């Protein structure tokens, strides 16, 4: 009897939590497929009487949204590429080599994550100006790469730690040098970890707002978050277009996230839980 009550209680809580977590998304979607007359109609109705994709059509034809998507894709792809090129060797070294100052080096990398972002923004701004990187996608890629590299190293180090050293040794005995071991033996074993690390990088750069607002606020380089922020200010306030933009920007990242979340979360939690 108590078991049954416990079970029912658990499900009530789960349903409540799911509604709080996902209800806002459902509401955004429903708004995006309503005709304008229904969005602002009183009495209120929750479900659209007439489904329409007019808001999506307006989003793609009367706003530069598709360009923002394109900018976001470029930034995310290059940030992921640059970060992995930096972080895979470093992660390998932190996992496999022994050298003096390793602990300190790792601690300093991680502590770079704790500076308030406003302090970084104020400090980077004059530099970006000097190098002519303001309103330039390269500037964003450089900043994002530096910002996500430490945690990516941490993730990848953890994934390398999970591969027994005996495997490297066996490959070395078979005549591989260190690069061949990494390239042909370890990386294939690490592929799901690399996907998880890329997911972290892509989600970060797809979502990031404050750096993008400060360093890429011009329409030729705007990424989705700054673009949406602009829409909030400018369309004062066309909720059909805004929610359509929200749905389009959320879909790719959420699908990606749901696919890799298990691996990403296990990488994220091992470090902190073992501490």
């Amino acid at each position, binding site marked *: 009897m108590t078991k049954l009550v416990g079970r029912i209680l658990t499900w009530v809580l789960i349903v409540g939590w799911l509604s709080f977590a996902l209800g806002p998304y459902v509401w955004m979607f429903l708004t995006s497929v309503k005709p304008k007359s229904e969005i602002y109609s009183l009495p209120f109705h929750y479900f659209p009487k007439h489904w329409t994709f007019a808001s999506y059509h307006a989003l793609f034809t009367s706003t530069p949204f598709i360009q923002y998507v394109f900018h976001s894709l470029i930034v995310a792809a290059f940030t992921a590429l640059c970060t992995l090129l930096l972080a895979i060797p470093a992660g390998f070294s932190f996992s496999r080599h022994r050298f003096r100052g390793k602990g300190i080096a790792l601690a300093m990398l991680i502590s770079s994550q704790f500076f308030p972002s*406003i302090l970084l923004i104020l400090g*980077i701004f004059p530099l970006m100006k000097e190098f002519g990187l303001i309103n330039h996608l390269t500037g964003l890629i450089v900043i994002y790469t530096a910002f996500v590299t430490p945690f990516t190293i941490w993730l990848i180090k953890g994934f390398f730690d999970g591969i027994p050293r005996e495997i490297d040794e066996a490959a070395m005995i078979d005549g591989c040098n260190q690069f061949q071991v990494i390239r042909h033996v370890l990386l294939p074993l690490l592929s799901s970890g690399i996907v998880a690390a890329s997911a972290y990088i892509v989600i970060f750069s797809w979502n990031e707002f404050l750096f993008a607002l400060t360093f890429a606020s011009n329409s030729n380089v705007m990424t989705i978050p700054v673009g949406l922020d602009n829409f909030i200010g400018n369309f004062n306030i066309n909720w059909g277009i805004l929610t359509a933009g929200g749905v389009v920007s959320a879909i790719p990242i959420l699908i990606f996230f749901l696919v890799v979340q298990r691996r990403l*979360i296990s990488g994220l939690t091992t470090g902190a839980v073992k501490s």
Partner: protein
Amino acid sequence: MSLPNLSYLKNQTRKNKFGPIWYIIPSTIVVAGVIGYPVIHAVILSFYNYNPLSSSLTFVGIANYVNIFGDSVFHQAILHSVIWTLGVVFFQLIFGLIGAVILNQSFKGRSVVRGLVLIPWATPSVLAALIWMWILDDNYGVLNHLLTQVGLSSLAQAWFSQSVTALPSLMLIDLWQGIPFFAVMLLAAMQSISGDLVEAAKLDGANAFRTFWSIKFPIILPTVLITTMLRIIWTASYADLILIVTQGGPGYASLTIPADAYFTAYSDLNYGGATAMAVVQAVVLFIVVIWYLRLISKQGILEQ
């Protein structure tokens, strides 16, 4: 086990002139150049008057610090930062703990539920702001409508444009985004608890609450404390929602230190004052973190 490992390492350094340093140098240079150097640069700028438009620079000593501490708006920002950080982290911890307990039950579709409740955490801040601005809209928002329907129309209000409700409404958005992170971290810690321990407690007649408080909670406590610290650091610096939704208003009712610094730099063009605010924030956080770490290491909680 350890002996062959050592010989392997020796072998490797002999065969390969390419030492560990070359694997680490590139990433270290990038992080030091793009994060380390700017932090130092910002600290230096806080002693200057700097105009971001003309790049003119004059040394003013500690004048920027004197000015911000005499500024009543900054005093409000400090108070709001404290409310914002402690309030958000406290409720995230409570609900995250409840969430972790729920997800730790065995039920059908658990991994699907875990993935779905994490979605707010992967949501861009702009999107979270946009969704909740629409839900909390004065005239067409679904929350005010629901309140009216259940007979609480007196509670329906302009959530973001009144000074009493602006900051709490922003905190609600942050709770929505942040609870899953806590829940998942704590869940991972709970799943590391061996089943035998819990079984033994149950055999001794402990009920579910007692098992939780006496057996599970002490084991997950280090994770609770570390996660709380990470969240405090992160939440204190998080200004996206405030910049997007209220710009610190109405008046200064939802202005926190990072938001104040942002507007001071880029709207008032008082770059020195802004960097001074950011430095104050960083120093205070640093002191809090050190104090917190010393406190918990004195208790010996982390050494288990």
